[in-house]
C-alpha cells in the first residue's frame, strides 16, 4: 500500500531532504515521517508550507512511497534517483555515502 512522505531540497546547497518523524529535515529517506491517511497528508502539506516560510528548504513536495520491510521505496523513478543519486555515477550522491540498490 502506498503512503506519503514530504520531500524538498535544502536551501543552502540544494541537497535532497525528507521531513523526519522528529521534525528535522533528514538527508536520507529512512526515518521520514509517514502519512497514512488524509489528515496526516494535510499535516505534511502544512509542515511543508511552514518550512518554506522559515527558509529552510525549497521545492517541497508530498510523494508516494511504499513500505518494503523497514525501507521506504518511492514509487516514481524520479524520486528514487533523488533518493540515491545519478544512476550513471554511482560514486556521486547519497548512494556514494550509503551503498544501496540502484534506483533503476
Amino acid at each position, binding site marked *: 500500500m502506498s503512503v506519503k512522505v514530504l520531500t524538498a*531540497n535544502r*536551501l*543552502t*546547497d*540544494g*541537497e*535532497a531532504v525528507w521531513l523526519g518523524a522528529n521534525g528535522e529535515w533528514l538527508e536520507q529517506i529512512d526515518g521520514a515521517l509517514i502519512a497514512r491517511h488524509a489528515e496526516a497528508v494535510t499535516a505534511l502539506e502544512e509542515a511543508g508550507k511552514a518550512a*518554506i516560510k*522559515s*527558509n529552510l528548504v*525549497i*521545492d517541497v513536495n508530498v510523494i508516494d512511497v511504499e513500505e518494503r520491510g523497514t525501507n521506504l521505496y518511492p*514509487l*516514481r*523513478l*524520479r524520486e528514487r*534517483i*533523488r533518493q540515491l*543519486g*545519478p*544512476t*550513471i*555515477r554511482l560514486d*556521486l*550522491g547519497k548512494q556514494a555515502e550509503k551503498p544501496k540498490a540502484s534506483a*533503476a
Partner: protein
Amino acid sequence: MYRYDEFDHAFVSARVDQFKDQVERRLAGELTEDQFRPLRLMNGVYLQLHAYMLRVAIPYGTLSSRQMRKLAHIARHYDRGYGHFTTRQNLQYNWPALKDMPKVLDELASVEMHALQTSGNCIRNVTADHFAGAAADEVADPRPYAEILRQWSSMHPEFSYLPRKFKIAVTGAERDRAAIQVHDIGLHLKKNEAGDLGFAVYVGGGQGRTPMVAKKIRDFLPVEDLLTYTTAIMRVYNLNGRRDNKYKARIKILVHETGTEELTRQVETEWQVLKDSDLKLPQQDVDAIDSYFRAPNLPQRPEGWSGLAAARKADHAFATWVDQNVTPHKNPDYGVVTISLKPIGGIPGDATDAQMDLVADIAEKFSQDEIRVSHEQNLVLPHVAIADLRIVYDLLLTDGLATANAGLITDIIACPGLDYCALANARSIPVAQRISERFGQPDRQADIGELKIKISGCINACGHHHVGHIGILGVEKKGEELYQISLGGSGDEICTIGDITGRGFSSEEIVDAVETIVDRYLEIRTDKEETFLAAYRRVGAAPFKDALYSEAANAA
C-alpha cells in the same frame, strides 16, 4: 579572441556584486524563494534533482586556455571534479552550493566569463559554428557578429522580459554546423555577387514540444543592418508573441500563426523606422570587433604532410582518428581537431577537471591558445599544424580524449535527462551509453558511417532529438520509461524534423530497436557512400517501420 574592455569588466563585476547581495539576503531570509527564483535564474542558477546547477555561458563556444583552466579549477574546488558541456555550447556544473555561487561567479569574472542570460525569457547565449575562423569552407568568421549581438543583447532593457526565451545562432559557411534553422533567429553570413558581406535571415525555428524549421525572411541583409533588423524582429515578437500560454509563446508559434509573408511584412515595416537609426553599425565599430577575431598568424609547416603519411602507416588507430576527427583548415598546413567527449560507453559531454586542464595545455602549445565547444557536446582545437597531429593525439590519448568517432553512430548527443534534470521524464545518458557500447567496435562504426543519434529525456528537446538522423525521446508512461523514435531529422543546411516511427520502446527494448533500424539501413543502402540520412530520404520511413513493427519483428 574578444577581450573585455573597461565597460565589460565593470558591468560583469557589478552583476557579481549584485548577485552576492541577493544570495546573502536569500540565505538570511530577507528574500523569499518566489522573490529570489527569477534573480538566481538570471544568473544561471537552476535547481535540479540533487543540488543546484550553474550554467556558465561560453559565448559562441570560444574559450582560451586560461578560461578552460578556470573551468577546471571551479569543477575541482566548488563541484565534484567535472563539468557537462551542453548543446548550447555552455558548461553546466551539477553540484555547486548556493552559498558558493558568488565566489564561483567572481572566479569566472576574473577570466572574463559569466553566467548571465543562460536562463530566463531573454536573448540567450549566442551560438556559432564551432569551426568558425578555421574551417576551409568558411566564407567569413561569424563570431564578430555573434559578439556584436552579445554586447547588444546583454541586459537589453527592452528585451529582458520577452514572452519566452530567445536563441540566436550564426554560421559563416554553406555547410551549417550551427543548426541555425532550429533557432528563433538563424543568421547565415555570406557574400553577395558584389562580394559584400551580409546575412540570410531565418526566423521561427525551434525544437521543444512543437518543432519547426525556420523560415527565410531575407536572402541578403547587409551586415551594417544586423542590429536594426534584429531589433525589428524582436519588437514584432515582443509586441505580438503570446504571453497567455507558455507553450505557445516562442516566436515559432507567432510565425506559424501569423504566416511568414505577413510576419515578414511586419518586420520590414518596423525596420523602415529603425534602419537609419543609431543601431546602424558603423564600419569602424565592426572593424574594431573584427580585429579581436583576426586569424592567428600561423607559421608555415609544410613538413607535416610527409610525417603524417608515415605516422598513419605506422599506426592504424591514429590514421582512423585523423580520418574521423580532423577537418580541413583554411591553411593547408593545419587541421581542425575535434576532441570527442563521447568515449565508448561514457557520458556524452562530461569532462573531468584533469581533462579540461589537459585540453588547456594542448591548446596553449598546439592550437594558438584557442578551444571551441561544439553544440554536439565535443571540444575543438581549431588551429593544429598537421605536423603536430601525432603529438596532440598522443597527449589526448593519455586521458581518454582520443576517441575516433566524430560524426559516427557513437558520437551521440544526450541531454542530462532524469539522472539530473528536474524537468526530465526519462533518462537519456544510460540509453546513450548502451547504444555506444553496442556499436562501439571501430570497424562496425566505420562501416555504418555518418549517423547522428540525439536523445532527449523530455519534450523540451535539449538533446535535439527532432533533428537526429535517429532521434530518441524519453517519456514516462504508467510510471515506466518509454522511448519514442523519430527518423530522418537533420539540423544542417537541409534542415528537417524527424518522423515519429510509431509506438515507443521500453528501456530494455530501445537499443535493439536502434540496431534493427541500423541493420535495415545496411541492407537497403545502395553502397557505402549512401549515408543513413540519404538512404532514409530516398526510401522514406516504410522499410524501417516494417523492420520495427512487422509481425515478424514483434515475434522475434
